[in-house]
């Protein structure tokens, strides 16, 4: 064999080092773009900051808002520190029940994030599995799953929440619902919005499954399940990442909307949405901070996630960057 030896001798003189995973990331377009995009950096910093603060809330918060003994009803509706009449114990003031607003916002952000991530993980599990099956197997499976998705999308999240909430409250009682509200909301938002994932994944699978590496895997004799998850799925990750950021923001907003309507987290374990709701009754009487400060936190959280998603979409758009 003449040609192979030529290649081998070439490679021995100029054998490059195999870069590690970290070096690959540092050389990637993703990292390059991130280094130049100050908006993305700021958003990531805010987002990570909020996540850390929220999940460390039991350590950071001045009081435990879930502990009734620490609540003093006489200290209710105190304004934040920069307004006259503030109490130095409560930096951001207190709500109508006398809970420290800073503590309860931290706990509430944690609840909101938990529901957001939980719901998105559920959506992704369902949506990716169904989307992969619909796209790769095609035919009847595809028709059935996509009609299911259409039906699911024709119910709004709100309607699902009302129905599920009503049924659970009627059968198990209100106390049960309050206790498992987080799981309920994750289930409701997760089940209501999986078709978004399924459709995105299906579209990319349809594009990928006709490529020759899939044929090569089939010729090799691999089973459909392995081809779907080992070969096709990794190549549809870019749109999945992009849609995940949007969906986390959407799920947090959905949760806030449901809680605002009284279908979500109970007052005793409030999320950002229930905090906004609980303060809404007092906004006319001058205690605006109970609504507006959690509202601002919600806006900042969702905005930073959405801007990150925008950046990610631009970076991963194959038409802008092909790699």
């Amino acid at each position, binding site marked *: *064999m*003449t*040609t*192979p*030896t*030529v*290649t*081998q001798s070439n*490679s*021995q003189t100029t*054998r490059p080092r*195999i870069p590690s995973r970290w070096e690959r990331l540092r050389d990637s377009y993703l990292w390059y773009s991130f280094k130049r995009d100050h908006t993305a950096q700021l958003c990531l910093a805010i987002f990570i900051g909020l996540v850390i603060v929220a999940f460390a809330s039991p350590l950071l918060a001045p009081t435990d808002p879930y502990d009734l003994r620490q609540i003093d009803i006489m200290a209710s509706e105190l304004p934040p520190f920069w307004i006259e009449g503030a109490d130095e114990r409560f930096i951001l003031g207190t709500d109508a029940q006398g809970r420290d607003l800073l503590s309860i916002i931290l706990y509430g952000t944690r609840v909101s994030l938990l529901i957001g991530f939980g719901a998105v993980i559920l959506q992704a599990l369902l949506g990716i599995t169904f989307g992969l099956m619909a796209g790769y197997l095609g035919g009847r499976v595809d*028709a059935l799953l996509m009609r299911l998705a259409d039906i699911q999308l024709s119910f709004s999240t709100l309607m699902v929440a009302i129905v599920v909430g009503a049924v659970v409250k009627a059968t198990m009682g209100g106390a049960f619902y309050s206790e498992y509200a987080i799981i309920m909301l994750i289930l409701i938002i997760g089940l209501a919005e999986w078709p978004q994932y399924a459709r995105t994944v299906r579209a990319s699978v349809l594009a990928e499954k006709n*490529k*020759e*590496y899939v*044929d*090569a*895997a*089939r*010729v*090799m*004799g*691999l*089973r459909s399940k392995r081809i779907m998850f080992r*070969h096709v799925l*990794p*190549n549809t*990750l870019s749109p999945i990442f992009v849609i995940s950021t949007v969906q986390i923001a959407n799920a947090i907003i959905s949760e806030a909307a449901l809680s605002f309507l009284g279908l979500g987290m109970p007052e005793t374990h409030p999320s950002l949405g229930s905090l906004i709701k609980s303060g809404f009754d007092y906004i006319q009487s001058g205690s605006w901070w109970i609504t507006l400060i959690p509202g601002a936190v919600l806006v900042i959280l969702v905005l930073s996630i959405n801007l990150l998603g925008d950046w990610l979409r631009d970076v991963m758009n194959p038409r802008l960057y092909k*790699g």
Partner: protein
Amino acid sequence: MNATAMDLKDANLESVDTPTQNEESADSLLQIRNLKKRFSLSGDFLEQLRFKGGKLIRHREYVHAINGVNLDIKRGEALCVVGESGCGKSTVARTVMGLLTPTAGEISYAGQRIDNLSSRELLPFRKRMQMIFQNPYASLNPRMTIQQTLEEPLRLHHPDWNRLKVQEKVQEVMSSVGIDPDWGKRFGHEFSGGQRQRIAIARALAVDPEFIVADEPISALDVSIQAQVLNLLMDAQRDRNLTYLFITHDLAVVEHFGTRVAVMYLGTVCEIATTATLFNKPRHPYTQALLSAIPRLEDDRPQHIRLKGEVPTPVNLPSGCVFHGRCPYANTRCRQEIPTLVTQLDGTRVACHAVEENRL
């Protein structure tokens, strides 16, 4: 048959064989019998319903990609399949490999029918027959390293091998195709087209197959690389005693590479011959036209044959011989009766009424 015709043409008509004759099957590795494949154009059931003259009818249209192909591939040979775009070459290759299910017909490998097996039953055959694809830029999974790509078939087909043995085999197969085994941790996109095709060949060779279907393996490559990859394939054939089904539209490659050649036109095989015979003495009018289209340096060659018209659509196949609309020798029989492959004296098989009747 008159005497002048006998003088002018070789009296090479020996026997009219049926498509299912078995005289060649003794040393043939792969047999394709009367293979047909059509693709539906009309979508699902609801889309097929049409109103016509006040009645609801079911209207179905098909692309007839291959219409009754018979091929025997002998152990150790390289059978080249040539033909223009859309003549069903790749469909034959993909059907043989089980990527497509045939509409009708049989495929047998080493005497055992394989076209109706389940994927589990087919697994032992997957190890014996492998495929090399056209586009090396698409045939390697972009998210897998070369090492992972090459290990996968080994782990599947040799579940009893330990890590070390798999690694050794990967190294061996990589160096046999001229890729430095140290590059295993790299991804497909870090290689050039020729290197990628070498890796794709390595993947096919990893399970030590005896039969390889190569679907235009060099047509996506730079001309300077084509020869290297072709030589690699020929070396592999010599070293590993491989049998090839080689799909191509490059006649120069056929001359260099093929033991025998099958010429396809509109989903049918019109001529099968050994490479030397086909290039020296093409029998079928289509083969003659095809070969005369090769640009050559000599200027004493006869004027090249210009065919009238275009290839008919495979949706509505012509009656009789599929080539009759463009054939200068076509008569009424050609328009009505589908010709079958007829073995000539020198072993060439031609599907042409004109050759059969010695009109040509």
